[in-house]
């Protein structure tokens, strides 16, 4: 809460300094024949003052908040009695956790010892000092910067150019965040994955045929081996994605063709938004639908036909995922079919071809690269889809091509390995990051190819 008050103060002070700078600009303009004598508009001088006031303050605030917690913690640890501060790091971090819990009023593990209570008191005192110091420093910076800039305002100051340059830098930084996100994804996943591959060999992971990521707490435990062969997981992902595509591609493609080539205007204005509703439904809803309605239905129908169907069959998850992807395929195909020039259709029709022949011999071949690109994007979507498979597919990693059996997927494994408490030194947790890395790399390749194909295709007819 304290940070939000501080932010509010910074905003208020920045607004005040805007008016300060503006009125100063009016004041100095009197000496040189009115506002026209200024280099820039008075508001530019105001903005210049406000920016100089706010930006350093925000920067200090951000750095302070990031650095505060580690510094205080190390000070508190240094102040602990020797028998506690010499504990191994993991025990020590438990104690630090306890101290933090005492401060925020949460329940601690066991009754805290007086030394820990004292440390908590110490922590609290340091925190109070830090808050006060930060507020004081920031206010001082803002006032000093405001006054300094105000005194520098003169008719010759090129305020507009400076303000615009600064804003342009801010705009550039915003767009650079996109790069930062990618770098963040790659680094965060890569580092943990590398730690994983130090424990489990890369080839064991990529080509091993058995997946059971349970590692033992005690070494004599049953089933403690912890096999990290990811092939069954990949096979399960591929199987479910394949079922999904078998549902989505024919239905999506045919819908797109019908809507763009046959349907009347009225039908289109009703059917198209309805199809798009399918795309807007959250995946957790599809997951619930799959688990509650589709999976039991398939299991019971299979039972009637004398088949043994698992209640978490790949078929149910794949079918519902296919439904989810229908609008994705159809809207992408619709786009590319629309991009095929009308003259090509007219040419074919004029030669006496029926509409079906025009579509199958002219429109679809011309749109094929775009359609393939769209399908690739849809595949990458199916592979990365999480909630449907978490709720409707199973956990046991079976290496099977039978859609009636239970399989597991990459995303399911990531979720089950990472939800709940984790320790970041066991291969079990790190395996999730290795799977995440593969998922990211694979979808990235698919996306790059797909986007490239779609883009090339668009250029062809523009």
């Amino acid at each position, binding site marked *: 809460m304290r940070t939000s008050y501080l932010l509010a103060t910074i905003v208020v002070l920045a607004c005040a300094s805007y008016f300060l700078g503006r009125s100063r600009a009016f004041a100095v303009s009197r000496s040189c024949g009115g506002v026209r004598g200024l280099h820039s508009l008075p508001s530019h001088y105001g903005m210049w003052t406000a920016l100089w006031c706010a930006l350093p303050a925000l920067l200090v605030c951000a750095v302070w908040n990031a650095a505060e917690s580690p510094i205080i913690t190390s000070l508190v640890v240094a102040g602990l009695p020797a028998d506690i501060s010499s504990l191994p790091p993991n025990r020590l971090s438990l104690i630090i956790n306890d101290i933090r819990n005492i401060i925020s009023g949460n329940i601690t593990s066991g009754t805290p010892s007086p030394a820990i209570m004292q440390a908590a008191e110490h922590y609290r005192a340091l925190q109070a000092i830090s808050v006060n110091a930060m507020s004081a420093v920031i206010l001082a910076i803002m006032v000093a910067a405001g006054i300094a800039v105000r005194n520098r305002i003169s008719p010759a100051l090129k305020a*507009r150019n400076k303000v*615009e340059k600064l*804003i342009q830098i*801010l*705009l*550039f930084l*915003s*767009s650079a965040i*996109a*790069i930062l996100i*990618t770098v*963040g*994804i790659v680094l*965060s996943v890569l*580092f943990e994955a590398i730690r994983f591959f130090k424990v489990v060999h890369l080839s064991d992971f990529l080509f091993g045929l058995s997946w059971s990521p349970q590692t033992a707490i005690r070494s004599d435990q049953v089933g403690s081996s912890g096999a990290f062969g990811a092939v069954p997981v990949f096979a399960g992902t591929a199987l479910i994605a394949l079922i999904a595509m078998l549902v989505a591609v*024919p*239905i*999506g493609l*045919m*819908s797109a063709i*019908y*809507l763009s*080539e*046959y349907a009347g205007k009225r039908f289109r204005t009703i*059917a198209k938004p309805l*199809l798009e509703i*399918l795309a807007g*439904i*959250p995946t*957790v*809803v599809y997951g*619930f*639908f799959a*688990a*509650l*309605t589709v999976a039991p239905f398939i299991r019971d129908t299979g039972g009637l036909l004398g088949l043994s169907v698992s209640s978490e069959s790949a078929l149910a998850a794949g079918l519902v995922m296919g439904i989810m992807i229908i609008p994705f395929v*159809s809207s992408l195909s619709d786009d590319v079919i629309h991009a095929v020039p009308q003259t090509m259709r007219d040419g074919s029709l004029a030669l006496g071809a*029926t*509409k*079906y022949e025009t*579509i199958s011999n002219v429109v679809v071949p011309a749109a094929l690269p775009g359609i393939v690109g769209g399908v690739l*994007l849809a595949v990458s*979507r199916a592979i*990365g889809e*999480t*909630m449907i498979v*978490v709720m409707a597919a199973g956990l046991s990693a079976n290496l099977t091509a039978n859609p009636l059996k239970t399989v597991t997927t990459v*995303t399911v494994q990531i*979720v089950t390995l*990472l*939800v709940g408490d984790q320790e*970041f030194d066991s291969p079990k947790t790190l395996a*999730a*990051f290795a799977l*995440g890395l593969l*998922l990211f790399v694979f*979808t990235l390749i698919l*996306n*790059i190819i797909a*986007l490239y194909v779609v883009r090339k295709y668009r250029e062809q007819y523009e």
Partner: protein
Amino acid sequence: MKQPTTNPAIDKVNRGLRRRYRAERRFRICGATAIITALCFLFLLFFSIVANGYKAFQKTYIQIDVFFDPAEFANENLATANFPGLVKTSMSSLFPEVNSRGDKKELFYLVSPGASFQLMQLVKNNPNLIGQQQSVWVAANDDVDMLLKGHIDRTRPETERRVSDKQLAWLDALAADGKIKKTFNTTFFTSGDSREPELAGIWGATCGSFYTLLITLSLSFPIGVAAAVYLEEFAPKNRWTDIIEVNINNLAAVPSIVYGLLGLAVFINFFGMPRSTPVVGGLVLTLMTLPIIIIASRASLKSVPPSIREAALGIGASKMQMVAHHVLPLALPGMLTGTIIGMAHALGETAPLLMVGMVAFIVDIPHGFTDPATVLPVQIYLWSDSPERAFVEKTSAAIMVLLIFLFLMNAAAVYLRKRFEIKW
């Protein structure tokens, strides 16, 4: 005046004509079938959810006569008073003939464990009640609720249903006395999560969603618009901006769970931010929606015709003034539409939030950005995992609420587009 054709090519065409028309018809029917299949799935989805969930908006109450015995309130502290005892006494007084220990247990099972909290609240609000007799409607247990809504089959053998024959008899007696009623389920909209289905509500998750989305909106909208303005208006055409562009398009297609991994590794492990809080959830969703907003904003900026820019520059505006005073206001409706769609996306997102620990079981209503919280879709996920039959109903009802929110957001986006779209 039809002349018999002698041209063999025409004859050949005519012979094939019937087959070709048949193929044409077949194809057309295929297309129509595809659309109808897709729409059937949509209908089936909505139907199964509404059919499962519409009864959750009603809740069963049982009327009991409570005597607030002054002896129980001898102690000043209300929390120490034996409210469960009061409920049990009142239930026993309804059926004085029930004596055995086992039977009493079954009888007390009919009312929700929340009943004693309800009584406590009553006394807290009105201490004068002590020493008085008062009839109170208390929530029934979820199994009773399910029975009265017809989800538990009375005709099944006793061992196969969750309500015993004795309980059925008591309930029938209560119903005959008019001591059972079903009213609108306000608990569902006002309370947080609970292990007892009859006490569980979505208000906690709704607040969590609100705080999370507030963070997402306040970060992703300004940053997204700024990035789009830079890329569209200022960026020089060089390799760097090309990379940024390809990058953004790729980010929009990265699986959402990967963003969850990023949040876990960077925000929680590296920066040590608190788990399960709207701050972290909001940050993760910001990263996820940012590409969507940037792409939509760029499209919107692109649709502003160059003549506007040239006119502004022509009368002496600087480039920044041209953008801020002319291009941005014209592009803003499109940007807002894109932002609303991005927010709707974020509202329905579940997977990355599972990674940053927003799946915790949280009873309290969150009151800030750093309180542990959960969000609506995660609440749906949590409930869908619960074994009680009553939670199926609750899950479907929560889905309906979520879909209504999404519908409203999308309607707002469509309205904005229709209202402010300018055809140049």
